[in-house]
């Protein structure tokens, strides 16, 4: 049941998806894997929306060069507070009605079952395909929806994977050759793409609209283009 305070807090979005939708968000437990450029806006907006439990996963501490995009981390966190803990501190003060769980460490084939046990949606905010494919495998095995996002420069892509209903990430990107090292990125690009991922989660949980199922959204903010490629 939503409290009076929650009904007031979420009033403007209850106008969109109803009290039932808000209840569904409150009951949900969502894993944000990678609390960086994408993970920051994803976690921020899902906290704002009142997703009941957020599980934040990352192994790193913020670096100064992360701050152009990773807006949940501040100067005082640099080299000090692991990203999930840095984000938890702000999100708990932002919305005290939700629960923030953390896992500081790297997801591996050995620990993924334990770490992600019981989540309703997985949000891929990672910066490498090796771990993405691990998430994809787990999502397929357990039948858990996976919201994929990735960015570079002014460009980004988003698709939502529903096991059994859509292609898997591995089927969409069969053999990615990973570029190693630093990639270029403007923070607002991650803001746009992460916000779209947060919308995907809200759509999955409330039944609003149509998630990007078997559709790959390609965004290029340098040239104002939004294209949807059919993956079927």
């Amino acid at each position, binding site marked *: 049941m939503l409290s009076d305070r929650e009904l007031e807090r979420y009033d403007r979005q209850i106008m969109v998806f109803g009290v039932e939708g808000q209840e569904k968000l409150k009951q949900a437990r969502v894993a944000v894997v*990678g609390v*960086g*450029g*994408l*993970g920051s806006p994803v976690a921020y907006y899902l906290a704002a929306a009142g997703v009941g439990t957020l599980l934040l996963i990352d192994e790193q501490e913020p670096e100064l060069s992360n701050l152009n995009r990773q807006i949940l981390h501040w100067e005082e966190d640099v080299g000090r507070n692991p990203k999930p803990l840095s984000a938890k501190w702000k999100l708990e003060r932002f919305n005290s009605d939700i629960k923030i769980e953390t896992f500081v460490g790297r997801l591996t084939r050995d620990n993924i079952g334990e770490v992600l046990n019981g989540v309703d949606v997985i949000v*891929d*905010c*990672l*910066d*490498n*395909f090796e771990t*993405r494919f691990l998430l994809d495998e787990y999502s397929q095995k357990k039948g858990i929806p996976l919201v994929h*996002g*990735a*960015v*570079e*420069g002014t*460009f*980004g*892509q988003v698709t939502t994977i529903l096991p059994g209903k859509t292609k898997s990430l591995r089927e*969409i*990107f*069969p*053999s*990615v*050759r*990973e*570029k190693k090292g630093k*990639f270029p*990125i403007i923070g607002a690009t*991650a803001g746009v793409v992460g916000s779209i991922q947060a919308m995907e989660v809200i759509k999955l949980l409330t039944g609003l609209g149509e998630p990007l199922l078997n559709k*790959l959204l*390609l965004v*290029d903010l340098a*040239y104002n*283009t939004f*294209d*949807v*490629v*059919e*993956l*079927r």
Partner: protein
Amino acid sequence: MKVTVRYFARYRSLVGKSEEELEVPDGITVRELIEILKERHPVLKNEVFAEEDDLADVNVSRNGRYVRFDEVLRDGDIVAIFPPVSGG
């Protein structure tokens, strides 16, 4: 036959345009088109596309649908090429 090629993300920056119409041999496959593009824009060959193997780094859609490299193209097709990006 004529096909329109659209470039996305860093391909667009490298090629310097968003799309172009090309006259190509009838009935070529996506793979053969990619070879033509590599000849036409060496910058793609050198910096982006896989050199010898299965063009692993290129994603291709034909008329808005994601396709494999053995798909045969037809006159008037719009082919988009885009790289998978991996940053977060």
